[in-house]
């Protein structure tokens, strides 16, 4: 048996490590240098109804131990996505989850209806992209709206519904609870933090918008805290995200209460991170005589 396997409902993930949306394209880009099934699943770039060119340049700026992005959900739109990847996903080596980004509830529903026939195990609802002014942020602020949105989506699909939350609102736990009550299967968090960087020579923003989404190891301590808080609030599985850059980081999130974890920015630096995390967790389990990942999840003991 694969020690790293973990189940969510009736779905099996052969590793708790998932490639985060926006950091792994549509799954094929890195295929020459890694095994796709080192990942329990990969999550696509956020898909919108229409093609989006994305935000003005520059879109990426490095900061100490992290980066700020202002991609602006550049993507080919749902129809082109289906054309390009529908067949590829029929025989994909690991689970595929589509990250769906709607401007409003109708968008979410339309996109999901259009891709429901694809061989993907579920949808991660991007309720939180900081980079689109008319985007998720508004929709995602109110637990009632989130409840209604997810309830409606629940009515049209039996696939996995994952609610992806932002760390930039203070009602994360309420949004998580609303998601759970509406029938959501899992919560993933965190999306990027709001961050800014100024070019002191020109006085302009160093990215194409006034601010962008901040990610990478720098956000880990805060993301871990939020995952812990939310895991104490809901009973559905949590997918922990935020600055994970090593096997040890991944285990911290499991201990804090995450059932699965996502790796994002670190992929740019170390595309083989999933393999490394898997190996690390396996050794850790051997060393500690743990046979089941579930025996790690949520075992945080507090302070000594």
């Amino acid at each position, binding site marked *: 048996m694969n020690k790293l396997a973990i189940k969510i409902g009736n779905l099996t993930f052969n590793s708790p490590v998932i490639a985060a949306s926006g950091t792994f394209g549509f799954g094929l880009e890195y295929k020459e240098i890694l095994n796709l099934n080192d990942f329990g699943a990969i999550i696509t770039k956020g898909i919108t109804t229409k093609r989006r060119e994305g935000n003005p340049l520059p879109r990426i700026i490095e900061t100490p131990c992290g980066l700020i992005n202002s991609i602006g959900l550049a993507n080919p739109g749902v129809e082109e996505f289906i054309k390009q990847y529908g067949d590829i996903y029929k025989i994909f080596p690991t689970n595929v989850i589509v990250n769906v980004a709607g401007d409003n509830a109708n968008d979410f529903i339309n996109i999901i209806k259009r891709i429901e026939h694809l061989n993907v195990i579920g949808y991660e609802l991007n309720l939180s992209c900081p980079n689109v002014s008319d985007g998720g942020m508004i929709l995602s602020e109110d637990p009632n709206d989130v409840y209604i949105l997810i309830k409606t989506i629940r009515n049209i699909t039996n696939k996995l519904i994952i609610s992806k939350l932002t760390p930039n609102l203070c009602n994360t736990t309420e949004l998580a609870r609303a998601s759970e009550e509406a029938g959501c299967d899992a919560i993933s968090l965190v999306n990027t933090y709001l961050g800014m960087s100024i070019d002191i020579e020109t006085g302009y923003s160093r990215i194409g918008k006034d601010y962008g989404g901040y990610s990478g190891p720098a956000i880990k301590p805060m993301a871990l805290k939020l995952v812990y808080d939310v895991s104490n609030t809901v009973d559905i599985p949590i997918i922990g995200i935020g600055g994970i850059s090593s096997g040890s980081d991944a285990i911290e999130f499991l201990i804090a209460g995450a059932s699965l974890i996502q790796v994002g*920015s670190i992929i740019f630096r170390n*595309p083989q991170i999933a393999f490394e995390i898997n190996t690390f967790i396996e050794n850790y389990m051997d060393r500690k005589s743990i046979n089941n990942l579930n025996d790690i999840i949520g075992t945080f003991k507090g302070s000594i």
Partner: protein
Amino acid sequence: MRRIKSQILSNKRLSKELHLITFTSEKIEEDLLPGNFLHILVSSSLDPFLRRPFSIFDISEGTISVLYRVIGKGTGIMKDLCKGDEIDIIGPLGNSYPIDNSNNIYCIAGGTGIASIHFLIEYIKQNHPTKQITLCWGTKTIHEFILMNEFRLISDKIIFSTEDGSYGNEGLITDFLPIFKDNSVIYACGPDGMLHILKKKPIDLPMFFSVEKRMACGVGVCLGCAVKMNNDTYKYTCIDGPVFNANELKYE
């Protein structure tokens, strides 16, 4: 595309800011074409966090050389690497300069743009020895003309310019371009400003630019390295480029 751990063989300072680093290639060099780049992780510390993209300056059996200018955190660490140290490399990445049937090759290089142009000239000399190569090379000051003898050997003609007039023509290289012959192609690599000026010139020849944009992934997943096209869509430097047909590019 492969990922390798590479050993530094030498790391020399050639001028105040320019350094040449040579490292083992684990056979990656066999797949390299002029214009391709490598994505290099220079340190195991998480600061700097991202890899750095660099063009190929030169290859030989089992080794690759990169010419780099020390400008920030990453290159600051690079310059202190010693023989035997390890770096982590992903490559080859990106497309390459398209080589057509033209007899006359004009290479226009500004600053570290000379790196990919060097590899290009060497490659053409080796694979298309009858082609005539003119190099137009501009720098800030005389000291940045590194390895001049070698360039004299592989180019048929060189036009020099420096911004401070310390060598060759005084001014920007774009002001001292030769009269282009027919049946020619132009390859240019250098700062955005230089490419912008070139693009505005009424040149009626095929012209290809190698561009530099900030990159996170280098392989097309992050969508960070966008370049604006004439039709207001974006292409991506790392997978659609770094070499673009100058016609396609939009400069505002």
